[in-house]
C-alpha cells in the first residue's frame, strides 16, 4: 500500500489516497476506503525512478496517482523496468560516475586532437578563396583603429623594401598578397602578421631589428606560408567546430565547456601551423637561393635567444659571455610577456622552432619533401 495523491485529470483538485496492487490490478482508494479507480497495472504508465523525485501512475483516462514514496513503488513493482532501473543505478554509483567523467574527457580529447582538425580542414578546403578573403576584409582597417599607427619608416626605406620583396610576394603570395608597414600604438614591438585577405603587416621595430635584408625576406616568406595554408581560417573553423560537435552529440552546450582540458590540445594547433609556415618559408627561401638560416637568426633575435654561436659554445661547456639579449627582447618582463601584441605570444615555442629550422637548413632535401 502506497500513500499519495489522486487527481481525476479534469482539474487541479487532488485528494489524499492510497494505491494497492492485487493480482496485477492497481486500485486507488480514498481516505474512506472507497475505490476511486481500478485498472490493470499493465495499462498504467509508471514514471521511471529519477533520484528521489515523486513517481506518478498515469491511467488511460488521464487520472493520476502521485507519491513521493520511491522505496514503496520499487518494492511494489519488485522488478523495476530494466532499462530505466539501470540508469538509476548508474546515476547513483560513484564508480560509474567516475568512468563517465573519464569517457567524456577522453572523447573530448580524441575529438579535439583528430576529428575537429580533419573536419575543419575539409570545410576550409570547400571554401572559395574569395569567401575566405571576404572574412578577412576590413580586418586591417579595424586593427588600425585600435592597435596600429602609420609607419614612421622613411618613404625611401619603405619603397626599397617593397621593391626587394615584390618578387617573393608575387611568386608565392598570389595576386592578393600586399605588404603593409605599421607601428604599434603602445610602443616598439617587433612583430609580423598575416591577415586572411593576404595582407602582410610588418612593424617598424621588426624592420629595424633585422641585421640583414634577407632576414626580412625570411619573415615575409613565413607569413606568406600562413596565408597560403589559410591558417587563420582553419584556426577559427577549428575553434568553432569543437563546440558545435560536442553540442550535436550531447545537446548540451555546457558539455563543451566541461572539456576544458582540451584547450591544451587546441593550443597545439598553433604549433602545427607555425611548423607548416616555417616549412613553406624554408622551401621558398631555398628556391630563391637564400639560406634558411636567415629565418633562424631572425627568430633568435625576436625571441631574445642567444645567437647560434653563443649557444653552441655554451653547449660545449665553454664560458658564456654574459647574456646577450636584444634591447627589444630584454624589456619583456613578466607582464609584458602576457601581452597579446608581443611576438612571443603570437609565436610560441620559438626555441624549438629555431632548432628545427637550423636542422632542416643543414639537411634540406629529405626533411622538406
Amino acid at each position, binding site marked *: 500500500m502506497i500513500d499519495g*495523491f489522486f*487527481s481525476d*485529470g*479534469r*482539474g*487541479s*483538485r*487532488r485528494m489524499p489516497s492510497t494505491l494497492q496492487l492485487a493480482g496485477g490490478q492497481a486500485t486507488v482508494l480514498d481516505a474512506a476506503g472507497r475505490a476511486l479507480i481500478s485498472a490493470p497495472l499493465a495499462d498504467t504508465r509508471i*514514471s521511471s525512478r*529519477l*533520484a*528521489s*523525485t*515523486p513517481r*506518478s501512475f498515469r491511467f488511460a483516462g*488521464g487520472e*493520476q496517482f*502521485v507519491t513521493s514514496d520511491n522505496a514503496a513503488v520499487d518494492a511494489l513493482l519488485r522488478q523495476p523496468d530494466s532499462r530505466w532501473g539501470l*540508469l538509476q543505478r*548508474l*546515476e*547513483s554509483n560513484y564508480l*560509474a*560516475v567516475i*568512468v*563517465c*567523467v573519464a*569517457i*567524456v574527457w577522453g*572523447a573530448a580529447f580524441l575529438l579535439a586532437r583528430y576529428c575537429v582538425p580533419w573536419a575543419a580542414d575539409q*570545410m576550409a578546403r*570547400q*571554401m572559395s578563396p574569395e569567401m575566405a578573403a571576404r572574412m578577412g576584409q*576590413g580586418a586591417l*582597417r*579595424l586593427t*588600425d*583603429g*585600435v592597435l596600429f599607427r602609420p609607419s614612421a619608416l622613411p618613404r625611401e626605406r619603405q619603397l626599397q623594401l617593397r621593391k626587394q620583396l615584390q618578387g617573393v610576394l608575387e611568386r608565392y603570395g598570389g595576386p592578393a598578397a600586399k605588404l603593409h608597414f605599421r607601428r604599434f600604438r*603602445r610602443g616598439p614591438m617587433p612583430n609580423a602578421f598575416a591577415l586572411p585577405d593576404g595582407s602582410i603587416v610588418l612593424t617598424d621595430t621588426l624592420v629595424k631589428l633585422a641585421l640583414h635584408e634577407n632576414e626580412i625576406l625570411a619573415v615575409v616568406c613565413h607569413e606568406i606560408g600562413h596565408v597560403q595554408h589559410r591558417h587563420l581560417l582553419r584556426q577559427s573553423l577549428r575553434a568553432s567546430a569543437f563546440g558545435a560537435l560536442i553540442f*550535436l*552529440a*550531447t*545537446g*548540451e*552546450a*555546457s*558539455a563543451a*565547456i*566541461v*572539456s*576544458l*582540458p582540451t584547450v591544451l590540445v587546441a593550443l597545439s594547433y598553433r604549433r602545427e601551423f607555425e611548423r607548416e609556415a616555417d616549412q613553406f618559408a624554408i622551401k621558398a627561401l631555398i628556391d630563391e637561393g637564400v639560406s634558411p638560416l636567415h629565418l633562424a637568426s631572425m627568430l633568435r633575435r625576436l625571441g631574445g635567444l642567444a645567437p647560434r654561436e653563443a649557444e653552441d659554445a655554451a653547449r660545449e661547456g665553454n664560458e658564456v659571455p654574459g647574456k646577450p639579449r636584444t634591447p627589444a627582447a630584454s624589456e619583456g618582463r613578466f*607582464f*609584458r610577456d*602576457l*601581452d*597579446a*601584441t608581443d611576438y612571443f605570444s603570437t609565436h610560441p615555442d620559438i626555441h624549438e622552432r629555431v632548432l628545427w629550422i637550423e636542422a632542416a637548413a643543414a639537411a634540406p632535401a629529405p626533411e622538406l619533401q
Partner: protein
Amino acid sequence: MNEHPATGQSASALPADTAASREKPAAAAEGAPESPPRKTHPFEFRGNGLEYFKIWIVNVALSILTLGIYSAWATVRSRRYFYANTWLAGEPFEYLASPLPILKGRAVAVALLALYALSNMYLMGEIVFLIVLPIAAPWLIVKGLAFRHRMSAWRNVQFRFHGTYLKAVAALWPVLLIAALSLGFVALLVKSPPQLALLLLLPYVLLLMFLAAWVGFRFSRFRVNYSAYGTTRFRFGAKLGGYVSIFMATLGVGFFVGMVCGIVVFPLILLGTFNAELLLPVVTSAQIFAMLAFQKQATTNIYFNSAALPGHDFRASLSFWGLAKTWLICLFLAVVTLGLYLPAARVRIARYMADHIAFRARDSLEEFSAAEAQRASALGEQVGQAFDVELSPF
C-alpha cells in the same frame, strides 16, 4: 557544494510575505469581500547539485557513446529532474515528454542545420541568413513553446500555449530593425575614421538598448498573454516604459562599473605595473557581467510581477547582489573544477530563482480545470522544441 545558497539572501523573499500579510487587515478594514487576502506560496527547489551532477555526467557520457542518439533521453531526464524538484504549494511540477518525439525533432533539426550550413557554403550565405532565419525563427519559437507548455504540468493539469505564427512575427519584428541597424552600423564603422566611429557609438548604443527593451517587452507580453494553465489564461500587465527603464538602467550600471574600475585601474596603468591591453578585457568583462546580472534580475522581476492568472499573481524579488553573488560563486567553482561544477551551478541558480519567486493565490488552488487532453505532438512542435535549451520551468 550543496548547502543552501546565500542564506542571507533568502531573507529578501520576506518582503513579499510581509506585504501579503499587511494586505490582510487592510482589506478587512475596508470590508471588500470581493478581494479576500492572498495567500503567498513560495516556489521551492529541492534538487541537489551532486545528485544532478551524477545524472548529467551519465547523460553526457551515454550521449557521446551513442553518437548523440541518447541525447533525447538525456534531455528528458534532465528536464524531469528540474521540473520534479520545483515545488509550489506542496506539489511538484512535472515534465511529461517522452524521448522519441524529442529524438525525431532533433534529427530533423540537425538535418535542417546541415542544409543551412551547406547553403552557406555554396550559395550566398547572407541571403539565406537574412531571409530564412527571420521567417523560421518565430515559427520555431511558437512551436517550441507549444511543446514545452503541453509537456509541463502541475497538479495533473497541463499548460497550453495559444500563440500563433503571425502574432510571434508581430512580437518579434523589432529584432529585424536591430539586425538591420547593426549591419548598417558595422558598415559605417568600417568606412569611417576611428574618431567619428567613437562619436557615433553612444547614440547607436542608446538606440540599440531601446530596441532591445521593445523586443523584451513585446516578446514577454506575447509569451505570457498566450499561455494558459489548463483552461485559465495568463495576463501580462507590464508597460513598455518599465522595460525601457530597465534597459537604460542596465546601461547606467555598465557605465558605473566601468567608471569604478577605471578609477582603480588607471593608476596601475600609469604606474606601469600592468599594461592596458591586459586590464581592459578584465574591466570589460566586469562591465558585461554586472549588466547581465542587473538585467536578468530586473527583467525576471518585472516578468513575474506583471504576470497573473484571474485572482492570482506572482511576486518576484530577485536582487542584483543576490543574483550576482550566485553567478560569481558558480563561475568561480566552475573554473576551479575545470567546468565540472556547471551542472551543479544550474541547480544552484534554479534554487536561487525559486527562492525569490512566489505565487500569490486568492482563491483555492483546487479550482483550475484541465484543457482538452492532448499528449501527442505534431512534428512541427518536435522540431521547435529542438531549439529550446531551457531546463527548468522558469
